[in-house]
């Protein structure tokens, strides 16, 4: 719970920092905003480990092959990074670049999800009474 307070505090300080710096040095305002974002992400990411560990244990119990889960992890990571970059691009003003990064991220995720689709089809095919 106290991490949430930390996140709120850092976000508030970053917003005021950017406001203060904007008249004197506008480029530093963007950098400060970006740093605040990185710090908040850094704080939040520790929570993800517990989630992924529970998922791992569930996967082990059910006996599914772990490769699918690591693939899903990779996809979540890619989504995480692309969203981070897109918001950074939007902050600095070039939102068109952000959209292109989004498209790139979607394509990469699509490419990585092909094995999942094929494995699902494989399972369905096995079920069918041929």
């Amino acid at each position, binding site marked *: 719970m106290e991490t949430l307070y930390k996140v709120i505090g*850092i976000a508030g300080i970053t917003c005021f*920092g950017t406001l203060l710096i904007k008249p004197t040095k506008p480029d*530093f305002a963007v950098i*400060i905003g970006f*740093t605040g974002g990185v710090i908040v992400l*850094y704080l939040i990411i520790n929570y993800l480990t517990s989630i992924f560990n529970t998922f791992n244990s569930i996967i082990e119990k059910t006996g599914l092959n772990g490769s699918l889960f690591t693939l899903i992890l990779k996809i979540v990571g890619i989504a995480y990074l692309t969203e981070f970059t897109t918001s950074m691009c939007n902050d600095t003003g070039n939102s068109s670049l952000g959209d292109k990064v989004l498209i790139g991220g979607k394509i990469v995720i699509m490419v990585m999800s092909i094995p999942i689709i094929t494995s699902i089809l494989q399972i369905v095919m096995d079920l069918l009474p041929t």
Partner: protein
Amino acid sequence: MDVEIIFKIAAIGILTAVIGQILKNSGKDDIATLSTLAGVIIVLIMILNLIAQLFETIRTMFSF
């Protein structure tokens, strides 16, 4: 990994602005641009370490 890096960057920003103004008023415009450039570069290097740390965590976390 806390707020002090934000304050450091704000301080560097204000410092470079002040130094730039002083140099500009005293007539040395080229040094003023150099000083602002130096300030920006220092801040970017600080940010670089932060981002490298974050990406390292993400890499280990999501088993890239």
